[in-house]
């Protein structure tokens, strides 16, 4: 079988020209998922290596948000520290595999792979990250929740490239990321949970939570969150029951080779219940 030609653009203009012409090209950022595909026998028509484009490896921060270049390796993002990027994102990225993979994998690659097992996506869903998608002729921003569709596919159009991830800093005073690993598999979680809350004088101003590794797509649904806004903590058991019942309705586990459906449903419910019951203590932890 013939080998695909490899293009190595060194600036965005050249990249967009290539993606406009070769809409079937496989984009290599970190290459972790791409190499697994090649190893499994995939043969793309052509490859575009985007790791040499400095514009895709920048990181900047304002008071309101942090912007991360899509091809920046995870280890570089983590190296800027837990106090600079949202803590849940830091914790999510830290939990992804080993140092060698973090040296290679990029946040953009993580997002575009749209895996239901992605730890970073669970945090990005709660944080309501926005994605910049650019092509030769256009540019648009889209929320990560809209970019990844219910069926697990993405809204990436022919010729488009994910270039930047914008993550609002948010005034959260509770930030929790937890994952329960699948036995014997260092890189796969059986359930992942991210919770955020803003609490003032004991009253919920805003609250968000996401569950990963269960449904086809990361599960976040505002209908679970809005009933809690304006309530005082600690929540009554009835409030918690309403939310966890809603979670049960929304959980639709995909088949997994790692853990059973019932285990993932029960673990998701336990994690959410724990988060809602322990908000006061988590607030004190900062």
């Amino acid at each position, binding site marked *: 079988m013939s*080998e*695909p*030609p*490899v293009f*190595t653009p060194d600036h965005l203009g050249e990249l967009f020209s290539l993606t406009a012409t070769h809409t079937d090209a496989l984009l*290599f950022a970190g*290459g*972790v998922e791409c*190499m*697994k595909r*090649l*190893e499994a026998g995939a043969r793309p028509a052509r*490859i575009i*290596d985007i*790791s040499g484009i400095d514009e895709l490896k920048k990181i900047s921060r304002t008071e309101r948000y942090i912007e991360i270049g899509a091809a920046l390796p995870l*280890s570089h993002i983590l190296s800027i520290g837990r106090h600079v990027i949202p803590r849940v994102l830091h914790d999510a990225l830290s939990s992804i*595999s*080993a*140092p*060698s*993979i973090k*040296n*290679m994998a990029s946040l953009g690659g993580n997002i575009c792979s749209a895996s239901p097992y992605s730890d970073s996506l669970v945090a990005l869903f709660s944080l309501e990250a926005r994605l910049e998608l650019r092509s030769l002729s256009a540019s648009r921003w889209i929320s990560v929740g809209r970019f990844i569709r219910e069926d697990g596919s993405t809204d990436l159009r022919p010729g488009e490239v994910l270039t930047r991830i914008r993550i609002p800093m948010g005034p959260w005073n509770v930030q929790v990321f937890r994952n329960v690993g699948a036995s014997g*598999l*260092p*890189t796969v979680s059986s359930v992942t949970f991210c919770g955020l809350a803003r609490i003032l004088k004991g009253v919920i101003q805003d609250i968000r939570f996401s569950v990963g590794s269960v449904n086809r797509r990361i599960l976040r649904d505002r209908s679970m969150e809005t009933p809690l806004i304006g309530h005082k903590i600690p929540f009554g058991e009835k409030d918690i029951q309403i939310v966890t019942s809603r979670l049960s309705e929304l959980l639709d586990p995909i088949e997994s080779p790692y853990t059973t459906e019932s285990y993932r449903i029960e673990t998701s419910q336990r994690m959410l219940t724990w988060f809602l019951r322990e908000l006061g203590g988590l607030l004190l932890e900062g």
Partner: protein
Amino acid sequence: MKLSFWINGERVTLTVPPTRSLLDLVREDLGLTGTKSGCRSGECGACLVLLDSELVNACLVPAFRVQGRKVTTVEGLLKDRFVAEIKNRLETDGLLQCGFCESGILMAVAYLLSSRSVPTEKEIREALSGNICRCTGHAGLVETVKTISAVRRTR
């Protein structure tokens, strides 16, 4: 593609398919079999090498990413006296039985100690999190890495 890069300090030039993995380059094309082929999907850590100064899984690096760069395999790393001492210590403590994971663990430990002279237990566990050892597990390795770093600190 015509590929030129540095391997353990020596420049090599090969003609290879661009998507050939660095793992196959070092093992099959260059005969450096210290780097092991395990899962071929970045899970087991048997194929760890340094690309420039970064630890990477050779199975996940395509040839076109190696152009003009410096690759260090376990054979190159063992030229360093300190790394050779780490190897001896791991063997003396009975932590390497079948030996399949050995080169990957050596790469991971040396990479950790190159940036953290006295790592915490958490850092050691994180550094070894990508290395699967079916014979001895990680508990003894963690203690030995602590000892190695403590001994080095007293020198």
